[in-house]
């Protein structure tokens, strides 16, 4: 480790990382465009200017991303000359940049807005016409490119080249006529396109599914974990007006996903906005499934256990460790649904395993079972508890709907199930509505957060299961 002083604070920093990384790690706000900790540094945008002094040589202003740290270096990120250099840089960047803020999706999380506010001069002096380029160029199903907004930081080019190891974008032309292009207007390919919209500092690369969907300052953001495969990328769930999930974005996690997530996970959120939800509980009456209070549903379920013994537990692979522990107390044999591997498996993030908590469930004694086999086991059981978000979906809604009426099925799920076998249905929160832990493929724990309220009448599944266990205690102990 190397000792340097940043803004009067003596700190120890990693000599393998550039000065800008040290500044950021020690709470010094140095602006950046072309630099990104997950990409090679190029030093082209020139915004990350700080003043450094080494030994007896007079202080000089340098770009922090291309400056190696050296023992005894004195760094002043707030020096007037550094601010002046950044101010000049911003005036140049804003000269051609279109005044799109009122219609730009990036507004509110735009590094050009933010740094112009922090370091800029308030008014530009250019009276020259701005360059005219393509403003809504489709790059495929995921990304739309606005070449006028682009500040040519080249992060997107480097992302495909270095992170996915397959170049797909280039800077074409040179000078002020440079533009970002694909080859021969071909669309982007692959499962990682969305990341370039995250790392684009401005609104040049934006997500088609998010286009004009929300103003980011109206979104409430919560740290969570993606459940689309066993990688469990750290994500942020972003909710509009406390109800609609509008966006999922990756959250930096050096141990799991660095700064990235795949498009499959990123665009899985519409599921969270799909109704109708199982809001409350249902019980099979003479005319089909009828609403009932949770208390009564729990009593009914407990009665079923007393009458027929421990149930066969078929749980969703989306069950958290906390829920699975509670469910195990109810059990009989515990199985978790293990659907077919996904063809999206790659060398990067997607594990191909659609079970976000396979490892955790296995550690708790649940055995994996393919949906077809699960149905077979269900047909031979006296009482079945189908537990957890997406359990019915992963089992197969159609297949479940063909189960015979004499089969006693208690469903704990997010959406109602139309099946003659279902005698009690209890609503559960989805993974945006509960806390809990999943264990990923490498053994890392990923946390869920409550990003919005579950529908009224839906209680946390851990509590529901504990309540049920309490009521059926005697029967379960036998």
């Amino acid at each position, binding site marked *: 480790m190397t000792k340097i002083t940043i803004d009067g604070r003596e700190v120890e920093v990693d000599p393998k990382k550039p000065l800008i990384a040290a500044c950021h790690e020690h709470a010094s706000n140095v602006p950046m465009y072309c630099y990104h900790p997950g990409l090679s540094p190029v030093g082209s945008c020139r915004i990350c200017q700080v003043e450094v002094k080494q030994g007896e040589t007079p202080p000089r202003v340098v770009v922090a991303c291309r400056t190696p740290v050296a023992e005894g270096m004195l760094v002043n990120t707030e020096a007037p000359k550094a601010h002046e250099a950044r101010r000049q840089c911003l005036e140049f960047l804003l000269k051609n940049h279109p005044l799109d803020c009122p219609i730009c999706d990036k507004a509110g999380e735009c590094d050009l807005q933010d740094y112009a506010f922090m370091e800029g001069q308030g008014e530009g002096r250019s009276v020259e016409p701005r360059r005219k380029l393509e403003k809504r160029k489709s790059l495929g199903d995921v990304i739309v490119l606005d070449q006028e907004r682009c500040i040519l930081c080249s992060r997107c080019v480097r992302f495909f080249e270095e992170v996915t190891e397959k170049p797909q974008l280039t800077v*074409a*032309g040179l000078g002020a006529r440079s533009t970002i292009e694909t*080859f*021969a207007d071909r669309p982007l390919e692959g499962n990682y396109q969305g990341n370039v919209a995250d790392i684009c500092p401005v609104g040049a690369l934006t997500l088609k599914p998010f286009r004009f969907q929300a103003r980011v300052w109206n979104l409430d953001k919560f740290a969570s974990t993606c459940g689309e495969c066993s990688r469990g990328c750290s994500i942020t769930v972003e909710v509009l007006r406390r109800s609609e999930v509008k966006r999922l974005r990756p959250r930096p996690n050096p141990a799991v996903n660095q700064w990235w997530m795949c498009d499959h996970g990123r665009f899985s959120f519409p599921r969270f906005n799909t109704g109708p939800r199982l809001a409350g509980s249902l019980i099979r009456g003479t005319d089909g499934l009828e609403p009932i209070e949770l208390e009564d549903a729990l009593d009914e379920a407990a009665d079923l256990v007393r009458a027929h013994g421990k149930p066969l537990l078929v749980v969703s692979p989306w069950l958290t460790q906390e829920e699975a522990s509670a469910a195990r107390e109810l059990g009989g044999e515990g199985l978790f649904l293990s659907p077919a591997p996904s063809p999206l498996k790659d060398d990067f993030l997607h594990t191909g395993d659609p079970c976000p908590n396979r490892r955790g469930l296995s550690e708790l004694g649940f055995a994996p079972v393919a949906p077809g086999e699960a149905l077979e086991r269900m047909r031979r059981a006296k009482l079945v508890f189908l537990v957890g978000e997406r359990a019915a979906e992963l089992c197969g809604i159609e297949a479940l709907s063909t189960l015979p009426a004499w089969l006693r099925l208690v469903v704990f799920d997010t959406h109602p199930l139309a099946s003659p076998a279902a005698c009690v249905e209890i609503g559960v929160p989805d993974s945006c509505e509960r806390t809990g832990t999943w264990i990923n493929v490498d053994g890392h724990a990923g946390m869920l957060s409550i990003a919005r309220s579950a529908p009224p009448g839906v209680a946390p599944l851990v509590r529901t299961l504990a309540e049920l266990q309490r009521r059926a205690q005697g029967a379960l102990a036998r």
Partner: protein
Amino acid sequence: MGPGKPSLPAALVRELEELVTHYPQRRAALIPALHRCQEELGGWLAPDTLEACAAFFGLEPVEVFGVASFYPMFHLHPSGKHVVGVCHNISCALRGAEEILAEVCRVTGADVGKVSPDGRYQVQRVECQGACTAAPMLVLDGVFHENLERAEVERVLGTVPKGPRLLESLR
């Protein structure tokens, strides 16, 4: 050319296989290779040409496109059969480059930056060609015509072969 990915003609491939041996890394031969591709394949770098060149080097087409687009000598759009460049930089500008350019446009019928109506000439402004002490000048199919007087322009432009140039392409 037929179905499947574009590839360079065999003779050109043989030539380029020799060229790459001059360098410790194959890719270093890319820009000289692009010159040869442009010369042999229609006087410009069509998307198929770029893709074939990329395949030769084991690069993605987008990388080759990015490189080619950086260099003014590479044409990424079909050019006229004969490319005429008039230097408009300082030494030439001081000695009548604009008059030369106007005369070139008049004789060829082409607008600056465009191909002439008969397709024979592509007229462009170019930056300093290194003929400053022999200004003004024009460069026609890569050959410099220096110490040029306006009255000579028509004769110089007429030195190109009359018939269409034999074009070869990947198609």
